[in-house]
């Protein structure tokens, strides 16, 4: 039986970022009329594959669900940290980033938003990953109400910039975006608007 990791073609230690790339890659692969699959599979098979992918991503992109799932596979200890965020690539990884990897990287760099600058973009990133405001709140200790205001860009309800920066960064981190860059972009935009 293929695990969610198998379905996405990633390792069980993969970061959320890697999982998202893999998910998008496979969604394209099973997309409507996608070259690699349309003549190989019939429409029903494609639908089944898409549904499996969506389910795998729903679970693996959600911190709590992923931890439970890992436990069910015997991968993680209870209460252990599961979600890993992208870390700077080690030397070994850099050595491999030769021409061949760069070209592959280019192929997938497109279409992956790493920075959100609006409340709507943050919300979209959250929903794609199936994370609730409460999940982020539990994780970040930022009240769910405030997180909602961030999404709605309710300037009147948001705290001073110095706090807001931290809140947006926490939000972004929880949904797999670049925390620092997202917070800066979000605040810069609101600053212009006000």
């Amino acid at each position, binding site marked *: 039986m293929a695990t969610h990791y198998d379905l996405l073609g990633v390792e069980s230690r993969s970061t959320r970022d890697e999982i998202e790339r*893999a998910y998008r890659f496979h969604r*394209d*692969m099973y997309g409507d009329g996608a*070259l*690699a699959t349309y003549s190989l599979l019939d429409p029903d098979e494609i639908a089944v594959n898409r549904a499996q992918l969506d389910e795998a991503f729903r679970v693996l992109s959600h911190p709590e669900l992923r931890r439970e799932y890992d436990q069910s596979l015997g991968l993680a200890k209870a209460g252990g940290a599961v979600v890993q965020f992208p870390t700077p690539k080690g030397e070994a990884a850099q050595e*491999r980033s030769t021409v*061949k990897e760069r070209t592959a990287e280019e192929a*997938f760099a497109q279409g992956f938003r790493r920075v959100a600058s609006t409340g709507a973009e943050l919300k979209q990133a959250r929903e794609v990953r199936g994370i609730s405001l409460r999940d982020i709140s539990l994780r970040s200790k930022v009240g769910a109400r405030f997180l909602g205001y961030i999404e709605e860009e309710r300037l009147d309800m948001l705290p001073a910039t110095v706090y807001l920066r931290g809140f947006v960064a926490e939000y972004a981190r929880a949904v797999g975006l670049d925390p620092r860059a997202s917070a800066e972009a979000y605040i810069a935009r609101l600053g212009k608007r006000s």
Partner: protein
Amino acid sequence: MALPMPGPIPHPATRTRQVWSLGGGKGGIGKSLLTASLGWQLARMGKRVVLVDGDLGGANLHTCLGMAPPELTLGDFIQRRVERIEDIVVDAGHPGLQLISGASDFLGAANINYQQKVRVLNRVRALDVDIVLMDLGAGTSFNIIDFFLASDLALLAVVPEPTSIENGYRFIKSALYRRLRNAVVHDGARRLVESALDPKNPLGIRSPLDLLTRVREESREIAEAFEKALAAFRPRFIVNQVRSQADIAVGHQLVAACTRHLGIRASFVGFVHHDDAVWQSVRKRRLFMAEAPGSRAAEEIRQLARGLLQGECLALPW
């Protein structure tokens, strides 16, 4: 045609001699140009290379290389008008690069029999070079597929268009089923493989994986032979004439689809962009590698050659 084709034939370990082949099922996707430019680059990198033109629709490797049609061709060798294969090898205008011209529809033609095929393969393999690179031309006939299966490195060219991808899959399936069929001597198992080739077979076998499941139920021994044959089948995709990042991604998707739905360990070894410099050179009957070395396509051929020599493939970035 009941005899299985031999695998790679061992030769004295004086040097590593390899036979590479380039197939693709469909015509007009640039196989000849890929073969010519890849061979040219390998020669430039210090390999002694002989290109073999097996294009069914009309041999034109010599034109790609800017040469006049050679007088003697593989047809002369097969028909035994010349006895030694060395006599049909001509210099291809670049140090280390030679050519065996096709110039007749021999590979796809029905009149080449098993012995002739083995003779060609053995003699070609015995040539005193580093790499034999065969342009298999279009089609999925047994003769083409047998050369594909017998090579050390089986390259499969596609362009990111539906017809080419469909033909590419057809080529892969035909090659794989032929390999599976030849992997067993049991008549029932062979019939099973043959019936699996019909997409509407009553057994409901839709893919090599279905076939394997079915065989496992019947015979462990045959299933093991199939698994071995599946594992040894390693087509390498080249995606030609790409125009976008999404086109490049098709190469990775083909590999993933082969793994998941056909049970085949394919790999993606390179891509070449659609490049005006290529056809401008073609019009002048010059090879773009020499005519436009700074072009994007030329650089991508150099990357392809380097990667193939080093046994690399393109990796997904996760």
